[in-house]
């Protein structure tokens, strides 16, 4: 076989191999619906094959053909010019591309009817219809798995893949409240819409300890912060909790409807509130995430709530 042809075949195979590697490392073509992936890969393949084919054709002509034709009268710095006709293939494909262009403009993406937003709406509707139906009734493990999948893309950038808050840069989701957060809320009060309504909690100047009948002291704050952060276990700080916090948050810290949120553990509804309203606390501001579907919220709520129970 001719060396040029062989080289062209090797190049084509190599480039197709690279494309295959790319598709593989992206985790495949993305299911039956994704025309974009398929067309892009097809385009890449066509590009390689056509270029190799055409260039090989001309290199073969360099090797075996000879130049001929009628020379023009002019001559520039010794450069002549043949009066050869257009290469037929080139001319035909040129016309073909013009025909294709007209088709694309009038029928492919019809100028009077196509709208990219319309196309987007259809894409979203089809996507939602497919997955909403499939995941309408999930068991708990599916719910958690789906929640984790949302978490990785939407939440992990701040809370970390381990949901540990990456060294204090965001809340550690494995516990309901860090010591620092409890203190922050007691010092500054709080109003984070965790109950779905605006229900402010007073700061320390409004927090009485029923045991001492006085405002809560620094030492008591330290103690109760440890107690709450520790999951309301042990004895240290328990009495302060009972005297100061239990009235609203309940003796077990699980909160009361319309009065105070659960501070013993995270509940799905609370996570949902944080996602919808955002939250401000000891670390900083967490923005609201309003871009998820109902199913995604449900899954994410369940998953995050499950983290604090582990």
């Amino acid at each position, binding site marked *: 076989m001719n060396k040029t042809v062989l080289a062209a075949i090797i190049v084509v195979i*190599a480039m197709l191999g*690279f494309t295959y590697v790319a*598709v593989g*490392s992206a985790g495949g073509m993305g299911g039956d619906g994704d025309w974009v992936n398929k067309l892009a890969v097809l385009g890449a393949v066509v590009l390689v094959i056509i270029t190799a084919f055409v260039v090989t054709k001309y290199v073969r002509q360099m090797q075996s*053909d000879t130049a001929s034709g009628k020379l023009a009268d002019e001559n520039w*710095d010794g450069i002549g010019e043949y009066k050869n006709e257009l290469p037929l293939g080139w001319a035909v494909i040129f016309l073909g591309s013009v025909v294709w262009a007209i088709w694309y403009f009038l029928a492919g993406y019809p100028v009077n009817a196509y709208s990219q937003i319309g196309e987007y709406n259809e894409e979203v509707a089809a996507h939602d219809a497919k997955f909403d139906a499939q995941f309408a009734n999930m068991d708990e493990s599916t719910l958690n798995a*789906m929640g984790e999948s949302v978490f990785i*893309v939407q939440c992990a950038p701040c809370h970390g893949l381990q949901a540990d808050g990456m060294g204090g840069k965001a809340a550690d989701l494995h516990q309901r409240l860090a010591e620092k957060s409890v203190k922050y809320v007691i010092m500054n009060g709080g109003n984070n819409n965790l109950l779905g309504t605006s229900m402010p909690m007073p700061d320390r100047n409004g927090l009485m300890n029923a045991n001492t009948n006085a405002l809560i002291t620094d030492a008591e704050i330290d103690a109760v912060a440890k107690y709450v952060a520790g999951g309301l276990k042990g004895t240290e700080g328990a009495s302060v909790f009972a005297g100061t916090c239990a009235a609203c948050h309940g003796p077990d810290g699980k909160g009361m409807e319309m009065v105070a949120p659960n501070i013993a553990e995270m509940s799905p509804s609370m996570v949902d509130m944080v996602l919808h309203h955002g939250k401000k606390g000891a670390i900083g501001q967490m923005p609201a995430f309003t871009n998820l579907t109902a199913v995604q919220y449900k899954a994410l709520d369940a998953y995050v709530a499950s983290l604090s129970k582990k």
Partner: protein
Amino acid sequence: MENRPLEYDYTVAKWFMLSTIVLGIVGMLVGVILAWEMAFPAVNTIAGSGLAEYTNFSRLRPLHTDAVIFGFTLSGIFSTWYYIGQRVLKVSMAESKFLMFLGKLHFALYLLVVVAVVGSLLLGITTSKEYAEFEWPIDIAVVVVWVTWGMGIFGLIGIRREKSLYISIWYYIATFLGIAMLYLFNNMEIPTYFASGGIGAWYHSVSMYSGTNDALVQWWYGHNAVAFGFTVPIVAMIYYFLPKESGQAVYSYKLSLLAFWGLMFVYLWAGGHHLLFSTVPDWMQTMGSVFSVVLILPSWGSAINMLLTMKGEWQQVAASPLIKFMVLASTFYMFSTLEGPIQAIKSVNALAHFTDWIVGHVHDGTLGWVGFMIMAALFHMAPRVFKREIYSKSLMGTQFWIQTLGVVLYFTSMWIAGITQGMMWRAHDEFGNLAYSFIDTVAVLHPYFTIRAVGGTLYLVGMLLFAFNMYKTMTSSRRVEESELQNASPMGA
């Protein structure tokens, strides 16, 4: 030849050859640094954290693009113009004191602008519009440089002996007009210092266009800066240097003609393909796609014309590294001008846009086509300009293979990186959620970024070999007689 040959005056061509080499090295070196920064972010602070502001990726990136476009490529264009122009118009610069003065002024002003650009970009003085980053004082200087060049072009044409314009001249005229029009419209801006009555930085300006309109004008410019900087003038070069070096007549006048006028008409429409799925009107996007695809044929017309010019001349291709450069340049030109339109098809663009596949596409055009062609042009010019043979043919061959390998590593790695990342961005998992967080799609690219950096480094090494070869050619190579300079360039071992 019945007449005594004209004594062409290559002074200005020579100066621009030097700036091509120097700015080429600078621009490519910055590019290589950028490539390593993407593979290994620690390189961002390679000069210490105190200087990190000036060595980090984002500050250097415009410097790279502008140095290779307006430094290397534009110098190459000017240099070849001051060489080809005289020869195909059959008139010497020495015949007109005025044109000679204009040429020298052109070079001096150009250097001033280059210095101003490098300084201002390092300081972060930029309008942010790609390849039009310069603030208004530099824009004005650019216009002056351009007009000076234009006067030189039309002055030389005005006193020409060869009445009919050679193909290369068509393309140089188009380069001049195209860039002039694009640059002026895209850089319409109001200096805020004057408009506000003397507040703030004197050099700052604000664009006349806002939002979507600004994007439209910018990519009408940006895409066609590629047209009239990377395509049109480089085609001008190959139409002269390939037939001249090989001694072959151009294959077909008709094909030259159709390819030229086709390119002129179609290219300008294609800018819209940078804005697919953006907020510009749908019909305009479709038009960008459509014309991009039609553009394949005028582009390929010139390349095919050149390849057919070499019909039956394989022994020359095999024997001369200089012709190898040009033939491979045509091939990369074809590859690149088919790749671009494929990426401009809406469904493909949905995946390819914003990824490294685009970066790969740009570089197989610039490294493989523009770079190779400009270096080949300089190789051909050197013996005529310096009256010495090319210092080393074997070094040229080595350079050819090193750089070819560099380009291949570059575009294959970016090919994989782009398609991978594009697919990962789009991927949904079995729950219908996004399958990858953004950083996953970055981490996966590390090996490809590394391969790309190696490819870029190889290309830079080739560029340094080129500079060395040229330096030796200018200073210590064997002297040659006019009779050796008809076609194939004389080369030392």
